[in-house]
């Protein structure tokens, strides 16, 4: 689209709300002066349009005019813009980073929305209507009506095989995915198994190859036919994509080398869970290790229910 040449925005009532609060002098507005959920309405509209297209074309990366956010690129600006465009006063927001609600960046993003959108926040997966996440999908099964917003650093699954955006766009258009299979097969040839550990490529609804953002492959099966709506935002790379509910998401593999997820020889030291993704903690300078749930809410809920681990 092109830049408008006239001052059309002057005639747009939806914009005046934010414009009016701008003081006559060019001073930064107080937080109270920012629009609801920080972004201006025009930006939200453009992101909302991109989101609808993304849902209509599952797994396809829709370019969008990403804005500079008040946190650095790489800290989740794509996810934050998607969340800001979706969030309303009736929502309850959960933010996790590495599965945990209390990691500093999760805290920071949760605060941002509590402040700018006055939204309720929670650490409980089942209470949240919108969950923004970096690198994990909660262990607690997602429900219909929930929206998961993923922070995405590099959205293009073919990027490591082809640096040029013009080329990868053509490859998606022509469904020319041979290189990806070749890459995975080279792994099998060299290591005897596929060595991709996270950001494991998937095919969505039998058409587009998609990067699930760097979630561990452990979480890939949670994407398949999930009742929740999955939205992906890459701010720096200016892409939005989506997986609608109940959509087939297949991790790429070979008949003789089927997709498999990580497993641990032990359970969570705190809650005893055997079915969750475990973080490895170094507990002493002799190299002693403990394994605990990466999903802190899941672990706490289990302990509250009386489950105990060996620790």
């Amino acid at each position, binding site marked *: 689209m092109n830049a408008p040449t006239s001052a059309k925005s002057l005639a747009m009532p939806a914009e005046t709300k934010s414009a009016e609060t701008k003081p006559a002098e060019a001073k930064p507005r107080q937080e109270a002066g920012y629009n609801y959920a920080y972004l201006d309405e025009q930006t939200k509209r453009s992101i909302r349009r991109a989101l609808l297209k993304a849902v209509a074309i599952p797994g396809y990366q829709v*370019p969008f005019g990403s804005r500079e956010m008040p946190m*650095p690129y790489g800290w989740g600006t794509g996810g934050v813009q998607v969340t800001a465009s979706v969030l309303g006063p009736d929502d309850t927001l959960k933010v996790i980073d590495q599965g945990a609600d*209390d*990691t500093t*960046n999760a805290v920071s993003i949760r605060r941002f929305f509590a402040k700018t959108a006055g939204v309720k926040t929670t650490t409980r997966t089942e209470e949240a209507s919108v969950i923004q996440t970096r690198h994990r999908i909660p262990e607690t099964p997602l429900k219909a009506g929930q929206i998961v917003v993923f922070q995405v650093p590099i959205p293009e699954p073919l990027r490591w095989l082809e640096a040029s955006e013009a080329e990868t766009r053509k490859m998606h258009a022509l469904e020319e995915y041979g290189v990806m299979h070749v890459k995975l097969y080279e792994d099998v040839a060299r290591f*005897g198994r596929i060595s991709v*550990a996270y950001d494991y490529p998937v095919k969505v609804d039998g058409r587009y190859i998609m990067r699930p953002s760097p979630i561990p492959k452990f979480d890939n099966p949670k994407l398949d036919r999930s009742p929740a709506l999955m939205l992906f935002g890459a701010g720096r790379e200016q892409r939005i994509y989506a997986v609608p509910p109940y959509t087939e998401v297949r991790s790429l593999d070979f008949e003789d080398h089927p997709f498999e997820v990580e497993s641990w020889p032990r359970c969570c030291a705190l809650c005893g869970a055997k079915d969750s993704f475990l973080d490895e903690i170094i507990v002493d300078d002799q190299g002693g290790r403990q394994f605990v749930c990466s999903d802190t809410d899941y672990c706490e809920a289990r302990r509250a229910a009386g489950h105990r681990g060996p620790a």
Partner: protein
Amino acid sequence: MYVAVKGGEQAIDNAHRLLAEERRGNPEQQEISVAQISGQLALAVDRVMAEGSLYDRELAALAIKQARGDMIEAIFLLRAYRTTLPRFGYSEPLRSDRMQVRRRVSATFKDLPGGQLLGPTFDYTHRLLDMTLLDDGEPSAQPAAERVGESSDGPLPRVVDLLNDEGLIETETPADERDVGDLTRESLTFPAGRDLRLQNLARADEGFLLGLGYSTQRGYGNNHPFAGEIRMGEVAVEFVPEELGFPIEIGEITVTECQMINQFQGSEQAPPQFTRGYGLVFGQSERKAMSMALVDRALRASELGEEAENPAQDEEFVLYHSDNVQATGFVEHLKLPHYVDFQSELTVLRRLRADFETASGPVPEAAE
């Protein structure tokens, strides 16, 4: 026994308090004022305005103060503020030919109408630390600079326009105004037009452009540049309010413009003629304007039928990596936790190692 880490909120609050203390520095010292930064670190302010894409000296100076002198952080602050500003419209194109020129040099003609105007430049300073500036007082008395020739009396003709009279340099046809893109509103797509390339370069990191421009001079996409003209001074910003229908001047900004003149052999369609590379930067920054002009010209390789094999000629490479706010974000995000991905890698690596050790020898399937 291990207890899950808590206290993210507290840690963040503490970090912010420490940062505020460090920013203030020694409280015995007088606090630096925004006006001092704006007035005495003017070139730093210029850079923050240029790469922050917002012409506001006061806010740029504030950003430098708040960022403790970290230029990219200051640029980031200004950018994040800029995003929230409502847009009332687009100005008329700047008329740099009508610039109130304070500095103008041409490397291509010894003399030209309006003459060379040295202006405030480091070019012929001897880089000797001036110890008199160590004292908080004024430097040793110097006669006031002669006001004569401080700026041009009127508009100065542009060197490229003089060449144009002879038809020796390509003519540039202004793009239809309606077709001027804006990469701060829409996602970049490729091939990008020159409008978007120039916008990207104008916001680009000075150091990145400097390195790329330099690489073209060292053989990575040489295009035989001459600094046709570099001019710095004040230009009027005009805007057409819808209700008036004619342009009114809404202010004046300082810009530096560089017109590079480059060789071109001509083709079957075009007679041999010089080609152009263009640089325009807010404030006074010749280094950036000149680098920009070199890279702009390099990026025109495909359009001009040249081989485009070098980094500075690769549109995607340059445009995707020139923005320091994006670059610093992605480089620095590596310090955020990656426990989960790393754990996945560890798990896979341990399995591969176990496979390797049980195979006792080279990995069996790899041998085939």
